[in-house]
């Protein structure tokens, strides 16, 4: 079965990204396919490579990057939500005249159409948020 995942909250503040991660991992381990993980609202904050969580805590961002690598996951940050909140890749930084970018490995930035497509193409859309 094909799942799409939507995440509406950033790392650490809410459990949404943790739950989504554990659900996604469990689905993959059962042999299901993950069509896409779409990060919306504050969810885009899951895509920053600048975090330095405490050493005795989980690294929410790194965990997504690694899962993406292992299973070739499509991790998409909504561009409109990302712009509001200060998440940029190299291209966006150039285009917006910003002097730095902060997107983590395995994530890409794209439009809201990717969320609709995720809803159309997958058998189930799972939403995790506040």
């Amino acid at each position, binding site marked *: 079965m094909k799942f799409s995942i939507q995440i509406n909250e950033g790392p650490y503040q809410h459990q949404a990204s943790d739950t989504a991660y554990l659900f996604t991992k469990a689905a993959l381990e059962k042999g299901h396919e993950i069509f896409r993980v779409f990060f919306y*609202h504050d969810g885009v904050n899951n895509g920053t490579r600048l975090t330095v969580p405490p050493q005795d805590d989980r690294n929410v961002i790194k965990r997504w990057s690694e899962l993406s690598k292992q299973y070739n996951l499509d991790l998409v940050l909504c561009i409109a939500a990302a712009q509001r909140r200060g998440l940029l890749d190299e291209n966006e930084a150039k285009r917006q005249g910003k002097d730095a970018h902060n997107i983590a490995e395995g994530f890409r930035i794209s439009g*809201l159409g990717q*969320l*609709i497509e995720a*809803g159309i193409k997958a058998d189930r859309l799972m*939403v995790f948020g506040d």
Partner: protein
Amino acid sequence: MSEGTIKKFLYLNRKAPYGTIYALESLEVVLIGAAFDQDVSLAFVDDGVFQLTKNQNTKGIEMKGFSLVYNALGDYGITKLYVEKESLEERGLTLDDLQDVVYEDENDDYAEKKSILLVSRAEMGQMMETQNVVLSF
């Protein structure tokens, strides 16, 4: 479902506007999603009914108002806005407190029709069961 199939998309709006961004960013998805030719419905349940109040004026809080966008949804082919009666009543509101959202029906000589469908909680629950994809905000 095969590639060309039309899915029933439900946008479930349960939050008030302005206190959080969910209502605004939900509307942004609806507008983008309209280009995908799916069968779209919007549900306004619980505090979601506050999104549709008349006379919203955000000048004093320096935020962008977006309530007029609901009335433009008809132009995007989005004409089913389910509003829950019990949610209004619990909040001391009636339909008169909401905008009069309308659309022009191209299948009926562009007659102006109401987009807001006032339904009971029981009807809302039944409508939910007919959907394929639910986006919650």
